[in-house]
């Protein structure tokens, strides 16, 4: 082989030289390394009496608490209640955020009218709404669902209106050439073009929904994972508190994965950067 031909050969990428960490199809296992590693380290630290397991119980104690809650049927009740609240609040927040975000992004007069107020409201801490919502909607489900919807609303509204304003003018001109109505322009050009940002906003909104449900369930709830947190604190059971936190983490991750999986076919058209394995 000539020197020139040797020079032309591409350098072997590191991934190709050492192989991927996990076999194809099992790459998701990489995401377990950190939590499992921390849990094992904590378990060992408590077993060797390097750390106090009373205030921060080891994973074995948390799983025992989870198993007990499952056997008694309490976990299913709390999870179902919280999931219902998040689902309703998320649905409401998405519907309102999408409607007002699309309107504000598309219409300058509407944006001038509503955006300053919504931007001001966005900066109010969620917990500040709690007393008002209890006064307005009572202590039961309505106030909780609305509080979650408020948390979901703002990222959806803000991202969608910004994404629509950022749509390439050249694509909009194609719609103008074909004499698209306002409705066609929104449905056929603006929303599809804003879809990648919108889907990210949905995921971000869902995350906020899980955060707001905790605040909502602090408002005198009788069931739900947030109630379980308060109950664990009032009865001095850190294993229950941590069991609730672990449940929140698992449910949050699971619902985010479901949302990402359900929406990924909608983004197959994207010509985006794909990092090497």
């Amino acid at each position: 082989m000539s020197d020139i031909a040797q020079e032309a050969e591409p350098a072997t990428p590191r991934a190709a030289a050492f192989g991927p960490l996990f076999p194809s199809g099992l790459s998701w296992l990489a995401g377990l390394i950190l939590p499992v590693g921390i849990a094992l380290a904590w378990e060992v630290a408590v077993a060797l009496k390097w750390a106090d397991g009373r205030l921060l119980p080891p994973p074995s104690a948390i799983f025992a608490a989870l198993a007990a809650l499952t056997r008694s049927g309490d976990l299913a009740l709390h999870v179902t209640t919280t999931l219902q609240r998040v689902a309703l609040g998320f649905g409401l927040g998405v519907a309102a955020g999408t409607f007002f975000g699309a309107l504000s992004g598309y219409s300058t007069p509407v944006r001038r009218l509503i955006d300053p107020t919504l931007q001001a409201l966005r900066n109010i801490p969620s917990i500040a709404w709690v007393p008002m919502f209890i006064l307005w909607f009572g202590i039961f489900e309505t106030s909780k669902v609305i509080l979650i919807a408020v948390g979901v609303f703002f990222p959806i509204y803000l991202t969608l209106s910004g994404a629509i304003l950022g749509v390439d003018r050249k694509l909009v001109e194609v719609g103008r050439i074909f004499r698209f109505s306002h409705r066609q322009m929104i449905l056929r050009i603006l929303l599809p073009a804003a879809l990648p940002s919108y889907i990210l906003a949905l995921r971000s909104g869902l995350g906020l929904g899980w955060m707001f449900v905790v605040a909502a369930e602090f408002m005198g709830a009788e069931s739900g994972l947030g109630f379980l947190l308060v109950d664990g604190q009032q009865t001095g059971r850190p294993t229950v508190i941590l069991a609730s936190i672990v449940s929140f983490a698992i449910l949050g991750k699971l619902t985010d994965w479901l949302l990402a999986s359900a929406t990924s076919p909608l983004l197959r058209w994207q010509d985006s950067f794909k990092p090497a394995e």
Partner: protein
Amino acid sequence: MLDIVNVSKRYPNGHLALSGLNLSVGKGEILAIVGGSGCGKSTLLRLLSGLDGPSSGEVTLSGSAIESPRSEIGLVFQEPRLMPWLSIEDNIAFGILGLPAEVRATRVREALERVGLAAHAGNWPRELSGGQAQRAALARALVARPEALLLDEPFSALDALTRSDLQQHLLDLWVYDQPTMILVTHDIEEALFLADRIVVMQPNPGRIRSEFRPQLARPHDRLDPEFQVWKSSLLAELGHASRRQTGEETFPAAAI
């Protein structure tokens, strides 16, 4: 068919892009507009398409004023401007969404075959080469069967070989419905190869400097000595227009 009567265009920033422009384009005619940067070629095309309105004067299609985009007028942009979230066939159907589904499907199928993209009907735009994407954009404009087709430097971003291929392809497509075509281009050879008539524009403000009607037999042959004579004349004319713009004494013809 298309008439531009005493048209001027001044942008909100005060820039006078076109001044006192008059031009008529007949049915089925292929007109090329050439000129240096900033002479108002693309502005003129935007007025003809109805995307912009004139500051004064009138632009009409068969006697009726063009005040907004119309179904009888198609426009092919410099870039393909395909919707990245739609397949190629859905992109081509984009301009005829108002037609019944069966008619739409037939027209799209025909258009895909005419532009040689039948095998790529289900592909995403990102999967096409630059030339294929521009052919899809041509199909999208032609599928609506416009009476007039406006082309804004449609092949300028392509390599020489693809450009030459698409120029011939455009003429092949023109044969089907023979729409009036107005082509804005920087490329003298492209203008001579495609057009029946060539208008040379000059800037500051944009206006028509001269018109050429090359007496060349169809199909125009780039190697024909007559073609080269017309090319030299056009280059010289563009040189005069450019000197007026820059104030230079000589014009580097080879730079065109």
